[in-house]
């Protein structure tokens, strides 16, 4: 199993969520986060006075899926979450050792 952590624009959440649904991916955890990328946030210029907004609101989608679904999820998030401008986000994929249910004794270890 893999964990997909996608950090995207908050205003794109509805579209990304819907596209994932259409591909059959329902389970997810969504968190409101703040962060910055290589551009160090957004710098606004006012007549000599600079205002830096270095932590920008984003949304993080966490999903745990079989290894074989990862490529399709990445494609789907890219296709719907992309504007082409700085700040579209990042996707991180990592290995998950155990998935254990709470309601049942389900245990997946691969």
């Amino acid at each position, binding site marked *: 199993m893999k964990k997909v952590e996608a950090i995207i624009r908050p205003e794109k959440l*509805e579209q990304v969520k819907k596209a994932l649904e259409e591909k059959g991916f329902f389970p997810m955890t969504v968190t409101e986060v703040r962060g910055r990328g290589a551009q160090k946030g957004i710098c606004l210029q006012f007549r000599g006075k600079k*205002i830096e907004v270095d932590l920008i609101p984003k949304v993080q989608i966490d999903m745990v899926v079989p290894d074989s679904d990862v490529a399709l999820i990445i494609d789907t998030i890219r296709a719907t979450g992309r504007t082409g401008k700085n700040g579209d986000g990042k996707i991180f994929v990592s290995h998950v050792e155990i998935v254990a249910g709470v309601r049942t004794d389900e245990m997946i270890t691969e």
Partner: protein
Amino acid sequence: MVLDSGDTAFIIICTALVLLMAPGVGLFYGGLVRRKNLISMFALSFAALAIVSVQWILFGYSLAFGPDIGGLIGSLEYAGLQGVGLSGDGIPDLLFMVFQMMFAAVTLAIITSAVAERIKLSSFIVFGLLWTTLVYDPLAHWVWGGGWMAGSGILDFAGGIVVHISAGWGALALALVIGKRAGFGQYSMEPHNIPLTLLGGALLWFGWFGFNAGSALAANGLAVNALIVTNTAAAAGTLAWMAASWINGKPSSIGMISGSIAGLGAVTPAAGFIDPIGALIIGAVSGIICYYALLWRLNRSLDESLDAWAIHGVGGVWGTVALGIFALSGIGGITGLIGGSSAQLALQAVGAVAAVAYAFAVTFMIAKAVDLTMGLRVTEDEEYVGLDISQHGESIYV
């Protein structure tokens, strides 16, 4: 020219009630925008209050209520409040001046609906000064200051033409010039804080008692009648909008409070001429037509963002015309269609159409002029980050 202490005390209190409507509009609008723009909406209402308060003292009051020039505008005789004194007929002239000042301020606050989440603060200050001078002051003069509408018998008790048509139709023109918000129609722009909007709406309803009852300019029976028809129309508008939206889904609280404002806006011009049964009909009809006006705007994907046009503009036209239908001679001395006279209805229709045309056309020109010279909009990045940070350097939570 004898002062009445009761009348004077009453209008001082009404002035304060109307003042509270400016932050009321700020709260109402602030809850409807995304959270990155709440401070901006609130600040625009305070800016409107401050701009008009200064402009009104210097020359606005004189343009609206100074000695008439050709039925079109007041002269500058009262500029800087020269000759506006402590005495007056019933209430001091100075009190009438400040009571009217609050109306002008609230009107400018209402129009900020059109530019929500994308206006440059400095451009709003310039636009607001021009708008209150070139749109509000002439209209106030036409109807209340002895201008051509007053001369031809067109009536507006507390501001259906002067406040609601001017702000509502001005907002439509302004929205067309400034353009849609980035992402409008592509992703959700749901209200971020509904309780703020409800509280703002409640303050408006409260302040409206001063607005309409105070427009009797005396603590008398006419003021009491205005207060009661105001409350009745607000309630009828609330229930009507609720019913109309219930048919299409769940009746939202935002819909209910929008219906209240629709009823309040519509009863405003008629409040001194109708009885509570007339108010019931005016309010209920307003709730329904404003609801459908809002749907029409959404279907046309017009980004008049917070619906000053659908609620104040459409409700104001309806109320101005409805005065000619429901007026009863026993209340304000005017007989409407239900009393068998159609003369007032025709006059009201002329007044409404003229006010719509004037407010729309002149607002459009002012907005274009400001847009071409200094730009109405913030940059794309500033809009994305939100006006709270980009225009005020603040966020609602730290």
